[in-house]
């Protein structure tokens, strides 16, 4: 009997089209998944176990929806098809019925999902021997992952969805619960720092462990186990059942069992009749007998408006006073509220923010609002369009004179209330958060802007969803169609099939952003153009929607087979108008994007870059002159988004051979009024990239000079030319060189780096950067540096209410013809990284010795200016005393808009700070871990020495150059923190950096290199670098390290000779004993991990109240290669032990000198320590610092 029931269930599901579609979809995704993973060079095999787990894990997220769909079909169908009374009056035992249905859902879900690993396996089998790296094919891997990760998830999902179906009795309940599960998953993934969550920062280890256990999909447990795995490990290790994984799987299996039990108890016929309760009666009043009198219907405009309004009111009531909407609304509030509180929390890299309106709105206005708004609209449109059919009112309504146009208008207006509700509730929440924090700068204009910039696109979406519903003639197919079309808007789907042009992204505006300083200014033209297009397109489609609106008994496309579209005059006219608007706005957009803006698809861009490189790439081997002086006259017109620049470069031949040709490349498309080198002719010109080859009439001899003049005009429309480094907008103009200005020689930044793309474009593969030592052999001195040093001078003009800033001293400032003029000149040569800014700045001044200090900010951001100024002053004082004189007369900290997308940036004599970081951190917050304002300012100020005064050898030719820039800046910031806040606080920060190092090496797809050969890896140059320099300070002493750095400055900065990481090592050798040199090398030249651990063996109180402690130290000292293979090595100390009292002060220090392994130590102390720490000063790179500390309570535990 049970077998027959089960067979029925299985065939019930399998017979449906959706089953086969699901099978196909999962199979296809499995097959093509790995091809979507980046076009990046990688050492990771495509069937590496870590890859398989990640892929299957991501796919398993969708199981919840599959289970929802199937559970609804299995458990709600009785009520849906009204067979309840038939089924439940048969003699089948209730439990048999339940289990057959439950197993049916479980088996079918498992089968459908099985298509995914099968697809993945097929993909791997097809790729063996091809261009992608495959390892040995182990079917067991797939079985293991499917069995441990997927099956429990399927069971759990089935159980939860069954319970939901039985309690909710409504299809929507299942999808609401599914979304809630996802929210839960994302919360845990965020806390664990899962690599699938961009920007996630892991919390404390306890929280991480809990989060890993609480993840229903098991993925967080896996990532917790696999964090920090090297390439070798990722290629070979399948996860095992460590305690977290076991706890996770067992926990969720138990939940599943609990849910099944509840479901089984609840399982029964649903005979709820929805009768109104009897006591809810009508007042017994005087019944006024009214005779029936027929009344003629009056159909005209007043009636049309009245009846449409009645339908709007009714639809709003149905849509928004319903359980599904309540669930939606709660979901929305639950989704965005934590986001808003997140900015009040601290994380590794930011302090709590002031709850500014811009910061709060940014948490959801560009991602969550469009996403949730679109998803909800898709769902509600399904409810709305088919309401008459599902309530079976369609025959009654069909016999009334109501026109489809009225139905459409009522539904459209009602749906448009959704964005209104979402936005209003969000504003209310923002407002509440601000009030609760005592913040009063509300910025009402930004609130209102949300209705426009966030709401109008959703109105266009509403039109599209209505269209899809009617055309698909069914609720679920309508939702699917809407999802497909609008998912294309999310970009990834459309791009895959070659639909890249921004016009294919339905109802979205490309590059829409805003900032506190500029608002939406730079996007306005684009926004209104695109919205006009999409609204009129929506209007055009609505003509179809209205024509085929389900009325009477014919639904949707069915009607296509009956009488064709009837063209009334009104329809024709509106059609023409809509089409005209679509055509003109679309044409305008295409003109601005493709013709004026030169938009190119990805492949076209690739081809263009390849062409450019083939044509001009050889210039990187030729001798080029260096810049020695830059003089510009820049006129900014922020209101018009325009600028004009006249520039003069003085070029000097600093090579030893004559130069015949000079290549000039303009990084940012401009209107060229003039580009001219005296006594030279243009022999080649590329209009697309704007590159010139000048042939000199007489070759430029060594030490000779020549002048380049240029006149350029820019106009920023926003269609294709939005850029982080270039903004022409009121109260936020920014031009960052050298990318946007004429460049001498071939810019390496434009050389294609990705080897697969080079191959595809027909370019020869790039040779790997040579080892540093090899590159230095035969190199000419001085080495080529990252930047030339130039004498800099500029005159900038801008709006009359704005202040323009550039590097150098302010020579003169005046007004003329209603514009402000500023003349800047650098007193000493500066690196050629000019930064021009203009906004409504106010400035705060100070002085250190001969250096004038300034902080420039806009009105609303005044609060943190004094702190920034003080941090700058402290750092300059420290660096000036310890590293060498500050290379200039002026130092400015400048607030820039968040459009620049930077945290902090160091330009010569200036540092840029984003309005939403240092200027927005709440300096009064009490629960701050590290003062990020101080840290960031110290770091960027230090760059004046490290990167600008001391210029590294060209980082694209010489490895390790970034050590001299970022690592030394990290060191400076660590020292500033330590002097201001003490070593305990500073080491907390150092711990973050160490974690970042270990996590970073677990994500690198290339082998790890040693620090002195770093090219651009963040986890090395920032994180390992910080740890390295701190260890140097521990071992050599701060003074010695500073002496080494001062040596670098004297020898290489003052003389303008670019240096390498080997030069830094030389300096460090000079200030240290010979026997410390291997230690220095172990940090810089090798990859050495030293896992020290401490254990308390015994504690005894001696006769005279002294304490005898027996400790044991374990050492695992490993040298690693880039792939993660390791060898144990001899460890020869020294190690330090700190003994701390209850107040956390160190009352005793012990240094263990001998070369040791597994050492036992006995010590007699005056008092009982509360804790003992091994290697407290971070002398070694220790992957696990947890086991370095032993806490001792009174009993000696």
């Amino acid at each position, binding site marked *: 009997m049970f077998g027959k029931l089960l067979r029925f269930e299985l065939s019930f599901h399998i017979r449906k089209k959706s089953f086969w579609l699901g099978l196909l979809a999962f199979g296809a995704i499995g097959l093509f998944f790995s091809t979507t993973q980046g076009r990046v060079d990688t050492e990771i095999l495509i069937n590496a176990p870590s890859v398989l787990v990640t892929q299957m894990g991501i796919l398993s997220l969708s199981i919840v929806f599959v289970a929802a769909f199937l559970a609804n079909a299995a458990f709600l169908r009785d009520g849906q098809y009204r067979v309840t009374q038939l089924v439940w009056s048969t003699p089948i035992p209730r439990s048999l019925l339940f289990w057959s249905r439950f197993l049916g859902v479980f088996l079918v879900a498992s089968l459908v999902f099985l298509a995914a690993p099968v697809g993945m396996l097929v993909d791997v089998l097809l790729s063996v021997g091809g261009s992608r790296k495959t390892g040995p094919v182990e079917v067991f891997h797939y079985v293991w992952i499917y069995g441990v990760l997927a099956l429990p998830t399927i069971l759990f999902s089935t159980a939860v969805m069954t319970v939901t179906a039985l309690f909710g009795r409504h299809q929507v309940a299942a999808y609401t619960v599914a979304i809630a599960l996802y929210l839960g998953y994302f919360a845990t993934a965020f806390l664990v720092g899962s690599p699938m969550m961009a920007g996630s920062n892991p919390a404390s280890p306890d929280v991480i462990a809990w989060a890993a256990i609480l993840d229903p999909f098991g993925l967080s447990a896996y990532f917790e186990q696999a964090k920090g795995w090297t390439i070798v490990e990722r290629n070979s290790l399948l996860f095992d059942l460590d305690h977290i994984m076991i706890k996770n799987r067992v926990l969720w299996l138990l939940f599943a069992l609990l849910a099944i039990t509840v479901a089984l108890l609840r399982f029964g016929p649903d005979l709820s009749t*929805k009768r109104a309760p009897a006591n809810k009666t009508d007042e017994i009043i005087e019944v006024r007998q009214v005779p*029936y009198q*027929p009344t003629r*219907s009056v159909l005209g405009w007043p*009636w049309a408006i009245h009846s449409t309004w009645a339908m709007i009111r*009714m639809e709003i009531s149905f849509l928004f006073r319903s359980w599904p909407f309540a669930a939606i609304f709660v979901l929305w509030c639950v989704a965005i509220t934590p986001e808003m509180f997140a900015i009040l929390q601290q994380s590794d890299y930011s302090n709590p923010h002031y709850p500014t309106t811009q910061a709060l709105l940014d948490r959801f206005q560009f991602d969550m609002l469009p996403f949730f708004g679109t998803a909800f609209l898709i769902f509600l449109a399904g409810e709305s369009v088919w309401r008459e059919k599902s*309530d*079976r*009112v369609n025959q009654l309504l069909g*016999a009334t004179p109501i026109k489809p146009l009225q139905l459409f208008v009522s539904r459209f207006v009602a749906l448009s209330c959704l964005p209104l509700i979402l936005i209003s509730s969000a504003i209310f929440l923002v407002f509440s958060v601000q009030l609760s924090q005592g913040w009063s700068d509300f910025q009402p204009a930004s609130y209102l802007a949300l209705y426009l910039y966030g709401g109008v696109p959703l109105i266009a979406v509403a039109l599209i969803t209505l269209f899809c519903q009617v055309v698909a003639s069914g609720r679920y197919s309508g939702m699917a169609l809407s999802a497909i079309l609008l998912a294309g808007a999310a970009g990834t789907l459309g791009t895959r099939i070659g639909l890249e042009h921004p016009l294919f992204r339905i109802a979205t505006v490309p590059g829409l952003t805003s900032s506190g300083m500029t608002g939406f200014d730079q996007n306005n033209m684009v926004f209104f153009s695109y919205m006009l297009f999409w609204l009129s397109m929506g209007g055009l489609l609505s003509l179809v929607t209205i024509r085929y609106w389900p009325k009477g008994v014919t639904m949707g496309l069915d009607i296509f087979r009956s009488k064709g579209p009837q063209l009334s005059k009104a329809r024709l006219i509106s059609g023409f108008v809509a089409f005209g608007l679509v055509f003109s706005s679309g044409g305008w957009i295409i003109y601005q994007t493709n013709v004026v803006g030169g938009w190119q698809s990805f492949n076209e861009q690739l081809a263009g870059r390849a062409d450019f490189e083939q044509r001009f790439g050889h210039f990187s081997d030729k001798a080029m002159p260096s810049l020695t002086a830059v003089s510009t006259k820049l006129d900014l017109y922020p209101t018009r988004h325009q600028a004009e620049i006249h520039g003069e470069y003085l070029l000097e031949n600093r090579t030893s051979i004559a130069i015949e040709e000079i290549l000039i490349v303009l990084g940012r498309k401009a209107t060229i009024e003039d580009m001219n080198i005296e006594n030279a002719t243009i022999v080649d010109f590329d209009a697309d990239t704007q590159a010139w080859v000048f042939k000199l009439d007489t070759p430029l001899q060594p030490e000779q000079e020549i002048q380049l003049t240029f006149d350029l005009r820019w106009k920023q429309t926003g269609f294709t030319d939005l850029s982080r480094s270039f903004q022409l907008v009121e109260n936020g103009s920014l031009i960052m060189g050298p990318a946007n200005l004429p460049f001498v020689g071939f810019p390496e930044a434009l050389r294609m780096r990705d080897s697969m793309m080079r191959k595809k474009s027909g370019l020869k593969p790039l040779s790997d950067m040579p080892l540093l030592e090899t590159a230095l052999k035969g190199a000419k001195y001085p080495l080529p540096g990252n930047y030339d040093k130039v004498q800099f001078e500029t005159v900038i003009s801008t709006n009359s209410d704005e202040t323009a800033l550039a590097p150098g001293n302010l020579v003169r400032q005046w007004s003329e013809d209603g514009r402000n003029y500023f003349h800047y000149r650098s007193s000493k040569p500066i690196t050629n990284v000019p930064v021009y800014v203009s906004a409504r700045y106010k400035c705060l001044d100070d002085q250190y010795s001969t250096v004038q200090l300034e902080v420039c900010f806009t009105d609303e951001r005044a609060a943190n200016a004094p702190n920034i100024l003080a941090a700058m002053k402290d750092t300059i004082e420290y660096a000036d005393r310890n590293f060498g004189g500050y290379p200039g007369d002026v130092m400015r900290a400048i607030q820039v808009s968040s459009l620049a997308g930077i945290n902090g940036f160091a330009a010569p004599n200036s540092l840029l700070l984003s309005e939403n970081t240092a200027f927005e951190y709440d300096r009064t917050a009490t629960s701050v871990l590290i003062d990020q304002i101080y840290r960031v300012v110290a770091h960027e100020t230090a760059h004046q020495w490290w990167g600008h005064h001391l210029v590294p050898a060209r980082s694209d030719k010489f490895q390790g150059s970034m050590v001299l820039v970022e690592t030394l800046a990290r060191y400076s910031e660590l020292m500033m923190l330590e002097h201001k806040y003490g070593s305990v606080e500073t080491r907390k920060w150092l711990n973050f950096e160490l974690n970042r190092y270990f996590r970073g090496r677990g994500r690198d797809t290339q082998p790890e290199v040693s620090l002195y050969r770093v090219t651009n890896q963040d986890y090395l140059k920032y994180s390992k670098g910080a740890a390295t320099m701190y260890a140097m300070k521990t071992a050599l002493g701060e003074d010695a390290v500073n002496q080494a750095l001062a040596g670098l400055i004297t020898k290489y900065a003052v003389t303008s000779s670019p240096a390498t990481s080997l030069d830094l090592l030389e300096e460090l050798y000079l200030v240290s004993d010979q026997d410390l040199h291997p230690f220095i090398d172990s940090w810089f030249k090798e990859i050495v991990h030293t896992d020290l651990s401490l254990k308390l063996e015994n504690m005894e109180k001696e006769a005279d109240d002294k304490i005898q402690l027996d400790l044991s130290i374990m050492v695992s000292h490993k040298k690693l290669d880039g792939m993660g293979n390791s060898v144990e090595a001899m460890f020869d100390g020294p190690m330090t032990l700190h003994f701390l009292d209850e107040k956390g002060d160190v009352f005793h220090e012990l240094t263990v000198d001998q070369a040791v392994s597994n050492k036992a130590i006995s010590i007699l102390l005056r008092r009982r320590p509360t804790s003992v720490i091994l290697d407290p000063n971070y002398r070694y790179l220790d992957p696990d610092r947890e086991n370095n500390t032993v806490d001792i309570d009174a009993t000696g535990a």
Partner: protein
Amino acid sequence: MLEIKNLQKTYAGKVEALKGVSLEIGKGMFGLLGPNGAGKSTLMRTIATLQPADSGDIIFDGQSVFESPDALRAKLGYLPQEFGVYPGMSAEALLGHFAILKGITDKQIRQDQVAALLQQTNLYEVRKRAVSGFSGGMRQRFGIAQALLGDPKLVIVDEPTAGLDPEERNRFHNLLSEIGENVIVLLSTHIVEDVEDLCPRMAILAGGTIVQSGICRELMAELDGRIWQKTMPKTDAQNWEAEYQVLSRTLFAGQHRLRVLSEVIPEDGFEAVSPTLEDVYFQALASIRNGD
């Protein structure tokens, strides 16, 4: 005057629901009889402007319904065979809503008419209750109330008494006959008694075509003197069915009663009886089966 001209409708290319139906219907009650699956509901829905026909035309008051459906809808009242209601709305509110949709914009007039109709259909006392919670009979009464909104000149009722208890059925008949004076009431049903009680004129629709139409009295008169009835045991009845044109066999006090159509008395024991509309009906259906 409602003229139906040669309507044809085929569903999904296979099921021929209407194969060229033509009728002329004037004021008063008109019955449309037919077995299940005859095409009655299709015809009703088509006249009620809910679905189009493949070919043919419907003219109401001189205007083609297919060309200007709204003109008919302004004067139409339709009670479908099966209908649902918006959940959670009271009878008063829902009826008021439909009143607005039908064109009664004046608030006072609308309230009056809603009250009057609810009283007439005996729903006034439960007017504040949600219609979605009504029993079958109450819902049917609500249906007729909404069909009478405004000033309908054509009222179509499709299988209206199915599911009503005898008391409700009587009340319903009384209500219908009241409105039937100046208005075309098209009653579609398979219950012959309803047509017999209420309708002076009728048509029989079977297999997608009109098999017979005319004034009931006249149709019955045609069978005068040709209907014979006898009660007999079952086995005898079965033998008779094979030999004579038996119109109907019913049970009466444990025995079988046959009604037979014949020009002369078939046998001893048969008595002549007055023809009923049911006889007309069965005779029409029988003639189709025999391929006439």
